[in-house]
């Protein structure tokens, strides 16, 4: 197991570095001149431009600029924002709790609702309950997350006068602000995982070993959870990990609609103002998080299914 984890970890390191080069290169290819962004489009003296060039390392070759950026990443320094003239790392870490909270809470909501619903559908295949859940999930899959958010705001504002957007000052407010956006974000997760666990369970319930277990006289619940589910869960985990990737982007949209102070709104702000240190910093961070989640999922696979470990 230890060797397997190490092997997988070593595999993602080159990917991370190539991704960082890609991010850096795409941002450099932009036709917008960073110096005009930094100086806010005002006419500046030669001396001011020269000072900016030194401060942001524009006087160095591109390769050196990249290496300086990478060196900074590993010492927790993401560079300086063009627009705000302050450290990007501080801005990012101040906003991390919202985004991570959103993704974590909605993943939990999604998994807790979707897997039982999927199993229920599989067991009661082709009954009314199954049909209704299937129709609901297909609609939820097809509903853009920002539409869900807007409709939830519309409904909530009609029901109660509660404030559920904007910043937070303490832990209680943090959860209050995050509750509704997390529910909105979890819908697509519920739908997708529900569908996959249904198909996967149906497939497993048809297999020979289930028949054997039934013939042995094992109780139904034990067959369902101990035998079928254990095998059915692998594709569910695969889809869940892909879906968490989609949720990282989904959180950008959710934060935008609910005006939450998270990474997503900072990223969009950075894109709109051509503030590239912010854009490349957040993108790299999100890619890093996504790669780590994928690593965790691979470890989870190996823990559930010993065959994967020895491949």
């Amino acid at each position, binding site marked *: 197991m230890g060797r397997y984890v190490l092997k997988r970890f070593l595999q993602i390191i080159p*990917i991370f570095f190539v*991704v960082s080069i890609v991010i850096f290169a795409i941002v450099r290819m932009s036709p917008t001149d960073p110096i005009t962004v930094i100086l806010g489009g005002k006419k500046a003296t030669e001396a001011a431009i020269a000072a900016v060039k030194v401060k942001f390392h524009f006087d160095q070759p591109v390769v050196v600029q990249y290496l300086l950026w990478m060196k900074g990443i590993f010492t927790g320094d993401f560079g300086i924002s063009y627009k705000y003239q302050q450290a990007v790392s501080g801005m990012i870490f101040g906003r991390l709790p919202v985004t991570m909270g959103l993704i974590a809470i909605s993943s939990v909501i999604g998994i807790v609702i979707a897997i039982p619903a999927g199993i229920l559908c599989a067991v009661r295949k082709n009954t009314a309950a199954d049909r209704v859940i299937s129709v609901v999930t297909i609609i939820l*899959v097809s509903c853009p997350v920002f539409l869900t958010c807007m*409709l939830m705001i519309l409904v909530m504002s009609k029901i109660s006068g509660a404030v559920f957007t904007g910043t937070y000052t303490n832990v209680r407010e943090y959860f209050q602000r995050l509750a509704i956006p997390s529910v909105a974000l979890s819908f697509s997760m519920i739908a997708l995982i529900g569908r996959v666990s249904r198909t996967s369970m149906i497939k497993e319930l048809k297999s020979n070993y289930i028949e054997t277990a039934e013939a042995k006289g094992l109780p139904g619940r034990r067959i369902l959870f101990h035998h079928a589910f254990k095998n059915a869960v692998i594709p569910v985990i695969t889809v869940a990990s892909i879906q968490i990737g989609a949720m990282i982007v989904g959180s950008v949209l959710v934060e935008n609609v609910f005006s939450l102070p998270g990474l997503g709104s900072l*990223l969009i702000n950075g894109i709109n103002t051509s503030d590239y240190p912010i854009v490349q910093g957040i993108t790299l961070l999100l890619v890093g998080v996504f790669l780590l989640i994928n690593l965790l999922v691979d470890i989870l696979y190996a823990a559930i299914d010993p065959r994967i470990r020895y491949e």
Partner: protein
Amino acid sequence: MKKKNVGRFFTVPMVITIALLALIILSSLFAPAVAPYRPEALDMDRALQLPSAAHLLGTDNVGRDILSRLIFGSRITLLSALAVVVISVIIGVPLGLISGYYGGRIDNAIMRVEDVVLAFPALLLAFLFVASFGKNITSAIIALGIVYVPMISRLTRSLALMERSKAYVEAAQSIGFSDGRIIFRHILPNCVSTIMTQLTLDIGYAILDLAALSFLGMGVQPPTSDWGVMLEEGRAFIQRNPMLCLAPGCAIILTVVLFNVLSDNIQMYLDPTQRKLPPFKKLKKLAGGLVER
């Protein structure tokens, strides 16, 4: 009644789905004839009206007819979703075929490059692209097309891998056909149906992703409008006329659901394990297998 339908392409849900999709596509093709108003016709006196006989879906904040905007908006939405899928096919299918057919180093190189694209969670690469190359629909389409390449390419690769070991490929090789001919004239036709199923699904996803990009101001730019832009514009006035968001929202959901169902049904038709053959066909197949050999 039910037995009659199995194993046929035109089942009841399929016919309904195709009919509705045809309706949407035709109305977007003939938008000028179908739409009751010009989509940009302002009428400040009738701003933010709820649905009525004159304006079936109501009007927006400057009095434009929502239904007409929806119909004209569908042109950009559908066309750009199609463009995204076409780009991903043009790049992804050949890559997948080459990677699956040759295997070894070439396969490895292609897979590693795609790993880099897959390392970006969903739309993030598209965000980066649009941020750098300009916030307009063209870069959004190209970016999304690239984001979709690995999915299509991996699917094609797995299909090509399966086909490669079959007898007909070996036969073609022993005759001395060139690799290009084997790949594109022999293997590709056997993969097309499965790829088409995936593409149908991808058009739906492309509509969703493009709407998200437009919503964030990174796709279609006003005054041109698609369903995503309509949602973004309607957001400020949702309290006064929910139709502003409900209409484009429902249009998106309906279209994506239809593409989903279409894909599901095609898959069901193509995948013999999911569909039961009617008894007489089964017999015929059995007989054919016994007699012809």
